[in-house]
């Protein structure tokens, strides 16, 4: 297997992008990444795009061909593949691209992600997202995504004494980080009281505990590490790429306060990279709900099980502390266009490792991690990056 590096990145502004279409966004992100890598279309061997549900959101399938077409690559007949793992579709697209390059089958490969969610009503969007859960045995009984994470939160609070204020602190911190990120959906500081006073969605989660509905796209250009310096002065190495699955329905899990898929993908990625969680300088984790970030930092081994709330309250995960989590603003405040999220996480880590993250730059960041979850934990991907 060959070592793989990222030689170019691009990402659109995330948010409610009424003025642009899925086609506009994927082309914008793709052109940015290709320009950043200084490659030409003729050099691209393959495309992988993460997209959860264009069929529901814009009534468009066959996204692989669509993005090759939008990217101006149709006349070159570049193979283009859409991959789907709910909210982990972007992370999965990155992994497919890594495998294509690592295997030696392809040299220059694009990993992209896109979702256009605001062309449908909030109700339709919520129902499309609910399709990542078990439609027959969760949604049929009235389960929603916030409800599934709320049930994890409730049990975590009961077992470990985690408080809603600790969860709210995740949102407060991630909004603070997002204020320093030009592509973030929200540039708005919030307080713990703002979270408490926002409408209840599923007890104990309020609106401000939840990631928003967003539009956006992101793209990365991958190359074998041995070729990377030809294209980029600052290639970022992918030293770990792992994926794990678990039961589709939350209720079938071994433990309702652990995402075993995260645990397994994390261990595998750390083993590949030959490093330990304490060596990570900056991480993007899947905070679709505030409890999600607390579970993630526990399940990835950054803190002990049950200590995620306390670590957040103590400020350990804020910019300027020992382990800054979600410097982009995370899904919570940077936005969560589901198929794009996994690629945006890698984009943020690349900026951090290049030292180009502006006001939210982590000092001397050398090792970064991206963690992307599908559904309530049926899929997890973990990627580890180094300078």
């Amino acid at each position: 297997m060959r070592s793989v590096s990222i030689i170019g990145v691009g990402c659109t502004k995330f948010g409610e992008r009424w003025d642009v279409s899925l086609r506009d966004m994927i082309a914008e992100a793709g052109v940015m990444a290709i320009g950043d890598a200084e490659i030409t279309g003729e050099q691209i061997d393959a495309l992988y795009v993460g997209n959860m549900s264009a069929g529901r959101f814009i009534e468009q399938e066959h996204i692989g061909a669509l993005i090759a077409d939008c990217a101006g690559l149709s006349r070159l007949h570049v193979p283009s593949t859409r991959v789907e793992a709910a909210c982990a579709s972007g992370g999965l697209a990155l992994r497919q691209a890594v495998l294509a390059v690592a295997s030696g089958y392809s040299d220059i490969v694009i990993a992209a992600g896109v979702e256009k969610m605001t062309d449908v009503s909030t109700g339709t969007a919520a129902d499309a997202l609910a399709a990542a859960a078990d439609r027959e045995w969760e949604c049929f009984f009235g389960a929603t995504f916030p409800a599934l994470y709320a049930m994890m939160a409730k049990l975590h609070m009961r077992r470990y004494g985690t408080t809603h204020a600790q969860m709210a602190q995740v949102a407060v911190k991630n909004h603070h980080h997002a204020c320093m990120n030009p592509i973030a959906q929200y540039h708005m500081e919030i307080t713990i009281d703002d979270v408490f006073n926002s409408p209840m969605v599923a007890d104990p989660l309020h609106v401000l505990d939840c990631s928003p509905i967003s539009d956006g796209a992101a793209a990365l250009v991958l190359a074998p590490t041995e070729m990377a310096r030809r294209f980029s002065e600052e290639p970022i190495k992918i030293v770990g790429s792992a994926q794990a699955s678990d039961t589709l329905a939350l209720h079938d899990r071994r433990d309702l306060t652990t995402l075993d898929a995260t645990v397994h993908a994390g261990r595998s990625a750390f083993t590949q990279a030959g490093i330990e969680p304490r060596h990570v300088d900056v991480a993007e984790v899947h905070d679709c709900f505030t409890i999600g970030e607390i579970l993630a930092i526990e399940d990835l081994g950054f803190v002990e099980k049950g200590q995620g709330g306390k670590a957040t309250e103590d400020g350990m995960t804020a910019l300027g502390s020992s382990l800054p989590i979600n410097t982009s603003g995370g899904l919570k405040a940077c936005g969560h266009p589901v198929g794009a999220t996994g690629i945006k996480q890698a984009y943020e880590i690349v900026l951090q490792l290049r030292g180009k993250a502006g006001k939210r730059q982590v000092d001397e960041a050398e090792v970064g991690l991206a963690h992307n979850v599908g559904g309530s934990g049926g899929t997890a991907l973990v990627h580890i990056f180094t300078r």
Partner: protein
Amino acid sequence: MTNQAPRFWRSIPQRYNLSGTHCTCCNEYFFPPRNLCPNCRRGAHLEDYTFKGTGSVITYTTIYTATEDFDRLTPYNLAIIQLDEGPKITGQIVSSSAGVKIGMRVRPVFRILGKEGDKGIIYYGTKFAPLLEPSCSTE
């Protein structure tokens, strides 16, 4: 709700009567029924089993913002219940939110779960009620 009549009808035994499966090789019970035992896989011997329906609340939430199909029910309680035979399932609890507690014992009740508009089919199925309290007659 996206379920259409055939999709609902083919799972009526499970939805009405909590019928699942039991692997006699490893003695694990499954709801909904599994055709493959994740422990024994091809070596499994699965038989039909109808659950008693009694169990305990493992965790729960009260939903205030629902999808369009469940809007009329808000706020409603959703729980993960561990049936006495072992498997965990998701279901609604018919009780005030103040009445639901982790560890609470519950029993099954037959209720309307949804409707396909005014003229479509009505979906019936199982919800849960507190075991030691009088039955709640509303949804």
